[in-house]
């Protein structure tokens, strides 16, 4: 994690360095040299362990290595066609949509709500902040196991419902063959909402007090202030939250693996789980690589516009 963060910061340093004025160019290029030298180890590490690995994954997706016997004969797009034709892949795309909608909505909605509440200059704010962000420190596997127990249809939350007279409300939660994925998002949103809350809280703190005062002077009530001042100002934060939760939706694995695996008829299957099972369950390396490559492309759709907009932000 550490090296990746440094390199991400590093790239941004280079970007801002290149926008300085011409008069001081010579001294800056000395700085640049130093910067490049300092960054070289992490650039190399990223190049080898990330970009080479990505390249290798794309390459493996075009060969015939679908058993333990290594086979590098080129088959073109056959693995891709096989993946696209697979009913499991279709189920995974459907699940991705369910998951992304459920997970992102809950995280962003509750994250914003909690941050707004914490921003009211309340007592014990630090305590509440810690409590809310705490689930983020719990590993995905633990989250999954705990929520599997909670969602067990006869002994979990359902027992609680039954005991308070809600006998008729006994959903099967994450094991529902059609809507299991929605239940899973409750568990993952529980884990991730605190983080989104922290993002929003930082964003709220960055909004100058004068703007709120100005809005108040103009006669805006609480609703109007949020609707016309605060929420628009927080758009970059929302954008960040969308990208982060979106990425999380694409690669979710651990919580699901420990909750219900692929589920009944792939009700809770994901691309990542499909990739894992293809590679290490069925030893279809090329198919696994194809799914991985597809996930990278999907992530790129989210991250590339994001990085471009970030660059625009800096140049302004």
């Amino acid at each position, binding site marked *: 994690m550490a090296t990746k963060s440094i390199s991400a910061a590093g790239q941004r340093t280079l970007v801002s360095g290149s926008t300085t004025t011409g008069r001081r160019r010579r001294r800056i290029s000395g700085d640049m040299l130093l910067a490049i030298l300092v960054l070289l180890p992490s650039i190399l590490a990223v190049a080898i362990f990330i970009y080479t690995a990505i390249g290798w994954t794309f390459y493996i997706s075009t060969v015939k290595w679908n058993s333990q016997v290594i086979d590098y004969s080129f088959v073109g797009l056959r693995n891709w066609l096989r993946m696209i034709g697979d009913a*499991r892949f279709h189920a995974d795309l459907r699940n991705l949509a369910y998951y992304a909608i459920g997970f992102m909505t809950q995280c962003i909605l509750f994250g914003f709500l909690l941050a707004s509440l914490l921003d009211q200059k309340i007592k014990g704010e630090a305590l509440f902040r810690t409590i809310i962000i705490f689930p983020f420190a719990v590993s995905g596997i633990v989250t999954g196991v705990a929520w599997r127990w909670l969602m067990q249809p006869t002994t979990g939350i359902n027992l609680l419902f039954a005991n308070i007279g809600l006998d008729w409300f006994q959903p099967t939660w994450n094991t529902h063959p059609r809507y299991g994925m929605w239940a899973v998002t409750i568990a993952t949103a529980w884990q991730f909402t605190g983080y989104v809350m922290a993002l929003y809280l930082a964003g709220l703190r960055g909004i100058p007090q004068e703007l709120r005062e100005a809005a108040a002077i103009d006669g805006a009530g609480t609703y109007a202030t949020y609707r016309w001042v605060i929420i628009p100002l927080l758009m970059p934060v929302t954008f960040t939250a969308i990208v982060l939760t979106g*990425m999380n939706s694409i690669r979710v694995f651990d919580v699901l693996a420990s909750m219900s695996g692929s589920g009944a008829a792939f009700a809770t299957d994901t691309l990542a789980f499909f990739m894992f099972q293809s590679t290490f369950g069925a030893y279809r390396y090329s198919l696994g690589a194809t799914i991985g490559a597809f996930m990278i492309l999907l992530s790129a759709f989210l991250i590339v516009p994001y990085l471009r907009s970030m660059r625009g932000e800096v140049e302004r």
Partner: protein
Amino acid sequence: MKFQNRLNRRNFMKFSALGAGAAALSACVAPGAAPATGGAAAPAPAAGANQLEIFSWWTSGGEVEALNAIYEIYSAQFPDVEIVNAALAGGAGQGGNMKALLETRMQGGQPPDSFQVHLGRELIDSHVIPDRMEDLSFLYEEEGLNDVFPKDLIDIASYEGKPYSVPVNIHRSNVLWYRPSKLEAAGVAAAPTTWDEFFAAAEQLKAAGIPALAIAEIEPNFSGHVFENILVTQLDQAGYLGLFNGSTAWDDERVTKALEILNQAFDYANTDYLSTSWGDINDRFVADDGPAMMIMGDWTHGVLMSKGFTDYRWAPAPDTTGLFVVLSDSFGLPKNAPHRDNAVNFLRVCGSRAGQDAFNPIKGSIPARTDPDLSKYDEYLLSAMEDFKSNTLLPSIQHGAAVKQSFVLDYAIAINNLATNRDVASAQSMLVQAATDAELVA
């Protein structure tokens, strides 16, 4: 409130970009970095140390104790060797996590000294054909194993006439476990011996409010086990074996019939079978309101005993009297095992009479050897030994004996699909596709 002042908008954006970047990179690296299962958790032992590293998926109840019984015999003979028990449980399918980790070690050229593997195609397709295993002909000769293992079993362990692993046990897949008190309560006189009798009994049980059959299908595998024991009732020996070499097609109408039987059986299963996991099913079976019958392998015997449960009996699964659907756990010798001599000695213990008689009574399985000390085995195991000698042996699908692992995965998924959608035609087309993908079709 320093935090508040420093976090102006630009800094904040930088900060969040950093987070997004890191998230993006970890998303991208995922395909290559799959051994998150615990590559670090089980480091390869130092080659210099006098060790013996054994991989297995035996981590629960009787399994661990049985394995320890073999270790004890080994340690008594070789006290200087430190045994590294690298066991890893669970995952998708039997021993899924362990197999995933094993696969990364084997691909990376860092095999353990020996590892558990299902006898049959799982061993052969996964490890022998990729040329990762040593031929054990020499060990079979030296230990006289050719004379004490049944010939059929050695054939299953062999590829091109050479044995590649040492079986430590024999499990039977086609056993019907039932609770006499439940059958009595519903007025069922005896355990069903045919599927017709089963459905008649199931109706009676249903009328009495008792689920007839225990099923755990929250994810694939359990019904796959049940289904193999229905398949063998519809196809004769040649027809069944033909499913794995292309001479019987998976769209055969006898396969359809078997799927229909299973589909009908789901009507009488515990209603929450899509929410029940294989790990929980034994607790469900012994519960007061549990199902009356369960079709499961004979490790169930050991599990039920370890729960102190006594209200159960056994019979061959319906229509399988005279058939023995067999699976076996075995240990092999990977090429370049870091402590080859220790591993060979371990395999000697595994194949020995003392080793097998220590392991099997605890595991709840019968020995692969034909000369066990009968006084060590209980009533069920003695009856299983009798059947093993006289019955027609058929390899298990779900447990890797009959067919390669990639097919087993797809097969279990197809049956899970039937359990969920109750659509025989769609499940059968998935089986046909699985056979095509596995290149079983000649």
